[in-house]
């Protein structure tokens, strides 16, 4: 069980994590989702006692990490950045950690076999590929057979086989009753592994709910309408209370309506229809919508450029009814209005950024 209370980290004037409140419970995989720079790594580092919170606290089974008597027995962590001396062999690296906590030597062999590094265990870790480095990090995390495991962006650098392996590993660990907390900036990855979701954007917790609930709330769909008489059709659709978003290419996205209802309206009004398609937006889009106002690094050139720190009012508390609004009128946040000049704004196109 990990519990964060008003957890805050400030670097100078910049707030990396802002009064984060969340609980990570045992027996399931909890996904920690947020765009790059949202504060995921900083939060994880504070959980692990690597960074000191500016204010607030976070505890492991009720105890701050730096007060744990047997840290590796309680928590295992794979961090985003490398945490290995490149001149030391994988085996010796694990030996050092095992000895620091008095873990039996057999445990080192066990985790080396578990992650499949047996053949390179005596090689210097500096020569490891990204994927091998991740596996070594996972071996270190599992060394103490901990009840809580934390993985920061674990699929980074892994090949498809490795990704599948780590997904299964996380699920297996959770099935054994452990607390599994895994961060990612990929909603699609989370959808496949996580049972519970904590969403963070610009340091604020935007959502903390079961995955199923998140999906139910956010599987927004709309009807793509194409008509040569769109200028006449759109107002008629809007009159029915449906939200109509004009697209640059003369089509429109209509929310809250079924294709058949739109077809009926067009028929009644004797307007031509060229296309009527039901489109389900992906979870990735739902995530982008949710964090649209809290993406720190936008790619330049789009309508929503510029930092959006002040673009949207943050939810006053994590469980404020921002979700209801989002579900009710769809795009509640800034890029809501159709851009008459062209493409809809694409706020989440920031480039990768190491943390």
């Amino acid at each position: 069980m990990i519990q964060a209370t008003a957890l805050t980290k400030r670097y100078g004037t910049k707030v990396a994590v802002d009064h984060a409140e969340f609980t990570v419970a045992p027996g399931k995989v909890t996904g920690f989702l947020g765009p790059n720079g949202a504060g995921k790594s900083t939060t994880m580092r504070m959980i692990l006692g690597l960074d000191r919170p500016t204010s607030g606290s976070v505890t492991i089974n009720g105890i701050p990490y730096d007060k744990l008597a047997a840290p590796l027995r309680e928590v295992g962590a794979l961090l985003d950045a490398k945490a290995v001396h490149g001149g030391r062999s994988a085996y010796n690296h694990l030996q050092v950690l095992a000895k620091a906590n008095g873990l039996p030597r057999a445990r080192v062999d066990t985790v080396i076999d578990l992650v499949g590094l047996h053949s390179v265990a005596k090689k210097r870790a500096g020569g490891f590929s990204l994927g091998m480095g991740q596996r070594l990090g996972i071996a270190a995390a599992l060394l103490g057979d901990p009840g809580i495991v934390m993985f920061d962006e674990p699929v980074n650098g892994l090949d498809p086989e490795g990704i599948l392996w780590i997904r299964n590993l996380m699920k297996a660990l959770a099935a054994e009753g452990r607390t599994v907390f895994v961060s990612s900036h990929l909603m699609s990855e989370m959808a496949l592994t996580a049972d519970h979701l904590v969403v963070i954007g610009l340091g604020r917790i935007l959502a903390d709910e079961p995955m199923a609930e998140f999906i139910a709330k956010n599987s927004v769909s709309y009807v793509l309408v194409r008509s040569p008489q769109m200028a006449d059709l759109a107002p008629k659709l809007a009159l029915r209370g449906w939200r109509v978003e004009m697209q640059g290419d003369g089509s429109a996205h209509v929310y809250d309506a079924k294709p058949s209802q739109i077809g009926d309206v067009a028929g009644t009004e004797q307007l031509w229809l060229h296309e009527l398609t039901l489109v389900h937006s992906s979870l990735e889009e739902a995530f982008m919508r949710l964090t649209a106002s809290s993406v720190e690094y936008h790619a330049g050139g789009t309508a929503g450029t510029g930092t959006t720190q002040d673009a949207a009012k943050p939810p006053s508390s994590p469980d404020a009814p921002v979700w209801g609004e989002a579900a009710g009128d769809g795009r509640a946040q800034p890029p809501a209005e159709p851009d008459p000049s062209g493409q809809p704004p694409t706020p989440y196109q920031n480039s990768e950024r190491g943390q």
Partner: protein
Amino acid sequence: MAATESVTINTLPGNGAGSGHAHFGRLLVAEWTKLRSVRSTYWSLITVVLAFPFFSWLIPFLIAHNWNQADPGSRAQVLQDPVSTIIGVGIDLGQFGIAVLGVLVMASEYSTGMIRSTVLASPRRVRMLAAKSVVFTLLALVIGEIVSFVAFFIGQLTFKSVLTVNLGAGTNLREVVGAGLYLGMLALFSMVIGALIRHPAGAITGVVLLLLVISNIIQLIPGAAGKYLYSYEPTNAGAAILTNHTSDKFLLTAWEGYAVFAGWTALLWVLAAWLLVRRDA
């Protein structure tokens, strides 16, 4: 590396085998394992182990070779402090191996990212720093003493044809023992600099500048201030134990000097420990 459908994590074999507590004794073992398992330790120590005795042979050899042609002034210098003649050049060069290793022991934790693993395994950071200090200082001290005595005996043998150097005479024993003590303290001092600066290149530059440049240049400061700065500069103070003749600008006795060196090291250690806890790892 086949993808497995299900993964089982064995629970620890023999539950009595590990409470998993990160207590001091275990941290000592871990730090010792760290030292043994990287090459930089061996390379740095080889510098001391080879260079120190080599120059303790070469300098006496050259002096003995030219003894009959040497002017009385040079001879008197050698006779006044033969141990310093034997170990002086060797330790001047050999100390850099210890200093560089000292810096690396701590700063490489930061440059490689190892510090995160270290602090995860021992979140009580001061305890970790203490364990590292004990292990590394003891290693440097033991190697320093062994090498100092070996170097002395090599020099003693080489000098045999022209003069007899008795270990028991005058301050000779103190100087030889002091050489090892100096290296031990320098090891800890450098390690602490590495902990404070955290960047290997920066910290090594700092220590080398202190040993080579600053320690000498401050004696150019005129007046009493210059004497005090020169005498209380940590490495100058510490090196007083290596000789029986100090410059008239040096205000301390040999053991006073060593105590000043130890005091500086202790002060910086406390500062490093405080910063270690305060700063993000």
